[in-house]
C-alpha cells in the first residue's frame, strides 16, 4: 500500500512538473482533474475499502479506483501533456510508440473495454477476490490492474488524447454500453451469489450497480458532448445541402 501511495505522489509531481515545462499554456482544469483522480485513487487504496471481507466498503473503493479515477485521469489528457512537455526527440519517440500495433490494440475500445470487463469477472467470478485477501502484494497488483485497465477502457472510449485510427462515435458508445452491461450483470450475479467469506455483499452489489450506472452515464454524456462539438459533426451540420 505504501508503494502504491508513493506511486500516486510521484504521478502528481510528474504531472505538475510537466505543466511547467509545457510549450503552451496548460488548462488548470486538466491539472485539477489529474490531482482529483489521484486523490480518489489514494482514498480507495488507503481507506477502509482496502479490506476485502466487507463487500460494501470494498465496492466503494473499487468504484473510486476502477471508474471515477480513470475518468478524471482521461480528462487530464496526460499523453497530450507529455507530447507538449517532453523535448522534441523524446516526444517524437513517444508518438512513434503510440502508433505501434500493441499500443493501437491497447487503446482500441473493442479491445480495452472487453479486457477491463473480463478482468472484473475474473476477480469476482473466480476465487481470486478471496485468494488475494491475505496477500498484500497480490492485492496491490489487483488494484493496479483495476486502475490501469479502467484507464485504458475509458481513454479508448472518450479519446481525449490523440489516437491514430480513432473509432467512430457510435462504435465507442456501443463499447461503453457493452462494458456497462457486463458490469451490471456482474453486480447482479454478486448479489445473488456472494463470494465466500464476505459480508455486506447485497449492499456492495447494489452500490456497484448504481455507482456504475452513474459513472457510465457521465462518461456517455462526455462522449456525446465531445462528438457534438467536434469539428466533423459541426461541419456536417453546417454544410449546405
Amino acid at each position, binding site marked *: 500500500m505504501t508503494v502504491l501511495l508513493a506511486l500516486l505522489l510521484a504521478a502528481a509531481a510528474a504531472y505538475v512538473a510537466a505543466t511547467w515545462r509545457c510549450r503552451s499554456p496548460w488548462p488548470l482544469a486538466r491539472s485539477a482533474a489529474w490531482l482529483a483522480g489521484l486523490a480518489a485513487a489514494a482514498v480507495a487504496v488507503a481507506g477502509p475499502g482496502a479490506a476485502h471481507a466487507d463487500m460494501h466498503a470494498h465496492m466503494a473503493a473499487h468504484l473510486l479506483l476502477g471508474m471515477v479515477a480513470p475518468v478524471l485521469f482521461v480528462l487530464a489528457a496526460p499523453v497530450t501533456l507529455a507530447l507538449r512537455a517532453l523535448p522534441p526527440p523524446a516526444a517524437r519517440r513517444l508518438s512513434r510508440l503510440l502508433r505501434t500495433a500493441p499500443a493501437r490494440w491497447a487503446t482500441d475500445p473493442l479491445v480495452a473495454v472487453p479486457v477491463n470487463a473480463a478482468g472484473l469477472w475474473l476477480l469476482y467470478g473466480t476465487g481470486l477476490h478471496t485468494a488475494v485477501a491475505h496477500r498484500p502484494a497480490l492485492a496491490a497488483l489487483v488494484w493496479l490492474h483495476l486502475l490501469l485497465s479502467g484507464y485504458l477502457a475509458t481513454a479508448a472510449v472518450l479519446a481525449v488524447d490523440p489516437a491514430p485510427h480513432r473509432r467512430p462515435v*457510435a462504435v465507442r*458508445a456501443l463499447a*461503453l*454500453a*457493452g462494458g*456497462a*452491461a*457486463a*458490469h*451490471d*450483470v*456482474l*453486480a*447482479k*450475479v454478486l*448479489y*445473488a451469489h456472494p463470494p465466500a467469506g464476505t459480508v455486506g455483499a447485497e449492499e456492495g*452489489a*447494489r452500490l456497484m*450497480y448504481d455507482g456504475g*450506472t452513474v459513472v*457510465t*452515464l457521465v462518461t*456517455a*454524456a462526455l462522449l*456525446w*458532448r465531445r*462528438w*457534438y462539438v467536434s469539428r466533423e*459533426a459541426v461541419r*456536417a*451540420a*453546417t*454544410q*449546405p*445541402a
Partner: protein
Amino acid sequence: MADALPRPAPRRRLLVSGLLLGAGTAGAIDEIVFHQLLHWHHFYDRASGAAGLVSDGLLHAATFSAAVAGMALLADARRRGPFPAALWWGAMLTGAGAFQLWDGLGNHKLLRLHQVRYGVDLTGYDVAWVLPGAALLLAGVVLLVRSRSRPVPRT
C-alpha cells in the same frame, strides 16, 4: 456567417434518435418509478435464475445508453434548422411503446423473468402495463405513417 442554410438531418438519423430516446425514456421511467421510488420491482427476485440476471443487466445498460445517444442525435438534428417534429415524435413514441410492450409481454409473460409486483393478483397490473404500451406504439406508428405523406421541409 454561413452563406447557405444548414443541411437538415437525414430521415434515418431522426428515426434512430427518436427510437433510442423513446426506449431510453421508457426504461428510465421504469427504473426510477418502479425500482427506486415504489420498490415494486426487485433488484433480483431469487426466482428468475441466470436468464433474468443477464436480461435485466443488459436491458438496464442498453436503455440508459440509448437515452444519452438519442439526446445527442436530437440536439444535432435541431441545430440543422428545419425539424420534422411529427417524424421524430412518431419514432419516439414507437420506441417507448415497443419497450413497454416488450417488458410487459416478453419479459413478464413469455420469459417470466420478473413481474410487475409481488404478492398481489397480477391481472390488473399486466393490463396496466400492456395497454399503454400498445397505445404508445399505435400512436407512434400513426405519426410515422402520416409524416411519410408530409415530406421533410426543404429549403
